[in-house]
């Protein structure tokens, strides 16, 4: 590619970043969480054209499927890329050396790690901050942010750490920080910081992975970590990554009830986050304590209509995504988009993924209605097995032996 083409692509990218950021800013300023269809459509199709032209591998993939910017008229027709592809292909519309950020998946199950290159960090930041503030900042005094997860310095390739770092730096009161080292969560130190805030009646925002929070719960229940807490009013807890392989021994409801009791938080103050490396946007469960998030009552009604949409306390347990991130479910058999309310594999159209891939196909299962997502576990293998060899297992074993 010559210089002029590269420059043209950069200019197009910058223009799209501006448009997406403006749209996010308008939403935030007006607390307008429902976009006109046309706005989403125009931006999504513009992003697709940019990615189709800029990312050669994606362009080839789309052409192989008989799809091009001129052949589609709806964002729903944009070819989605399974998250696994991020492990084998650099999916970006710019030279990778020009990326401001590179996030990588944990890669614990497959060996190779997915790579999400971002040319600009400002759109990513605009997206995450707008939605984080909506769901996790109650208003009033800045909370003390206590994080049980690695910081950005400890894990520079983690998109979660990047987000948490922003929360500490941008939104945390003095004393906020990461309570984590190479051994895992520093629970005692984190609790000390929480107790200090408790003594000062300072609201606390606890952010942590499910595994770390489970250790916190066990330590407080057993007494090994001291007495239980009574966190001040306005405190919240965000749990993340709890449903993707963490060694959980409790059901989600019992887990949250336990956390609620040991931290002295109402159940409604516990928020779950859904995010993944390949998405620039995140989803949160509506929380009854934040007054400026999209109509909680509306979500409650929707949640009640979805399978497993309410927790035992009647709180919505659906995830809500920002208006710049569409979510849908596709038929597991045909991979075609399903009508609202039907169970399928989840697919996202994330406009904050300006220079990577906007349409992402996940392996997660859920039901979507009115933009709210009820995340369901995968059904256990319903298919009876034949006498065919489990090739993947044999090849994995063979490659381990070769190592």
């Amino acid at each position: 590619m010559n210089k002029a083409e590269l420059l043209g692509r950069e200019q197009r990218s910058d223009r799209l970043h501006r448009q997406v950021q403006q749209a996010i800013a308008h939403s935030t300023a007006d607390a307008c969480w429902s976009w006109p269809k046309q706005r989403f459509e125009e931006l999504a199709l513009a992003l697709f054209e940019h990615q189709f032209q800029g990312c050669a591998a994606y362009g080839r993939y789309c052409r192989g499927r008989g799809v091009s910017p001129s052949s589609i008229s709806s964002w729903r027709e944009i070819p989605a890329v399974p998250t696994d592809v991020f492990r084998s292909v650099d999916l970006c519309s710019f030279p990778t050396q020009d990326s401001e950020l590179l996030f990588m998946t944990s890669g614990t199950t497959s060996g190779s790690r997915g790579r999400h290159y971002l040319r600009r960090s400002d759109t990513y930041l605009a997206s995450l901050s707008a939605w984080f503030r909506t769901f996790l900042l109650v208003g009033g005094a800045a909370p003390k942010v206590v994080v049980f997860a690695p910081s950005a310095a400890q894990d520079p390739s983690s998109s979660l750490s990047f987000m948490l770092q922003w929360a500490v730096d941008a939104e945390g009161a003095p004393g906020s920080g990461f309570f984590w080292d190479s051994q895992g969560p520093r629970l005692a130190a984190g609790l000390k910081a929480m107790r200090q805030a408790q003594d000062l009646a300072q609201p606390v925002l606890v952010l942590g992975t499910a595994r770390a929070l489970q250790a916190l719960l066990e330590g407080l229940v057993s007494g090994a970590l001291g007495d239980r807490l009574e966190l001040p009013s306005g405190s919240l807890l965000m749990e993340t990554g709890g449903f993707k392989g963490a060694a959980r021994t409790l059901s989600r409801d019992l887990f949250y009830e336990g956390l609620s009791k040991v931290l002295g938080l109402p159940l409604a103050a516990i928020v779950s986050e859904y995010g993944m490396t390949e998405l620039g946007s995140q989803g949160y469960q509506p929380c009854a304590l934040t007054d400026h998030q999209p109509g909680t009552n509306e979500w409650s009604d929707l949640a009640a209509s979805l399978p497993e949409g309410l927790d035992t306390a009647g709180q919505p347990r659906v995830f809500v995504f920002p208006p710049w991130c569409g979510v849908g479910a596709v038929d597991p058999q045909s991979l075609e988009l399903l009508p609202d309310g039907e169970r399928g594999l989840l697919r996202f159209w994330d406009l904050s993924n300006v220079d990577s891939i906007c349409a992402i196909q996940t392996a997660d299962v859920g039901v979507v209605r009115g933009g709210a997502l009820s995340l369901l576990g995968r059904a256990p293998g319903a298919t009876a097995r034949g006498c065919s060899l489990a090739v993947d297992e044999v090849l994995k074993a063979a490659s381990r032996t070769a190592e």
Partner: protein
Amino acid sequence: MRSFLPGVDDAGWDAPGSNSLSDRLLAGAAELRDSGPALRALGERARMRALAGLALAWRDPEDPFRREALQLLPAECGLSSAMVERGIDDAFSVVTEQALRYWWSTEAQGRPYQGRGEAPELSGHIWASNVFVAGLPPVMASLLVGSPALIKAPASMPSFACLLARSVREHAPELGRCLGAAGWSRKQVAVTTTFLDGADLLFAFGEDRSIEELRVQFQRPFYAFGARYSIAVLCSTVMGDDQQLDQLLDALADDQLAWDGQGCLSPRWIFVEGSPELAQMLAERAACRLPDRAELLPGTLLGDDDAAHRASWLGQVGFSGWAREGRGWCCGAFDSSRLEPSPPPRSLCFVPLEDLDELALLLTPLGSRLQGMSFFGPEKRREQLVEVLEPLGLSRVCEPGGLQRPPLHWSHDGVRILEAFC
């Protein structure tokens, strides 16, 4: 219906009784052994006639056992009705008097029966997986030589074995009480021990680990059939006109769609001698044929994990070559010779190979678990390939479209099944 044991379940299956399954197995095994002398006294010609008649009955659409099987097996085995019907037809169509005679003449005639002068008194058969007819040939062999047989079916899939046992009584009464069957879980260790104690030789289908455990436990003649994979190979030099090409692709599709691509004879990869472009051309053409083929042999609904795996495969192959999908099928072509990611069930996966001599090396990581190969190309090339693939386990070679219909005398996993009784 969870069992049909001679002398035990004759009054009606699933009848409430106080006897444990172990006790009933013991009693059933004794009845079976008692029926052996009469079975052997019939002579092989009469046994062949009876078995061929039984097979013919199973292929009769009005046959009550077939009808019951068609009713029960789709849900039990997770297969479509069309697949169950095809499985029955394929399995019994090869059981003819002529085929039995050939089998007898090549593997049994003039044998000393392990030095005893006659066939074993009772053979044991452990069936596994939803390819419900996989264990049929050893049972046919057993009855052919005059050994009564007792089948252990999976607890969740007992129906075909039990229907088969009942149908022998109905359609081949001259064979006597020669076949029994019951379904139980391998977790019922005591029942399995009773079963194994009663058998003089054992044929077992299942996972490698289960087979190794059985091998330790069963110290008499033991023949095991583990999980395997198959392939198809196409030589570019013999690709014909469009019509021939479509016939070839349909045949490949039938081999793969049968048993929902989950059988040991389901071709996992289709290796194409030639360029990535040729492999993609074949995949694109196959994608036009597959919707109709898939409709003829519909699949069952994918579980979530399988669906996620399929979506991932489609994406990965789509980026490294070409892929397309529809309801109940998918197909793709890599742009280089590779096995990963492994194709999902009901997919045609075309892999280009510049030189077929690379094939053995490519398959080596899978060990000696190769089962079958459908081959389309010159005879000489086929012979060369067979020679290099036999050390990888290859035991069945045929033309595309024929993989799933192995003859009775197929040396499954290299085992000469009828000879094993002799």
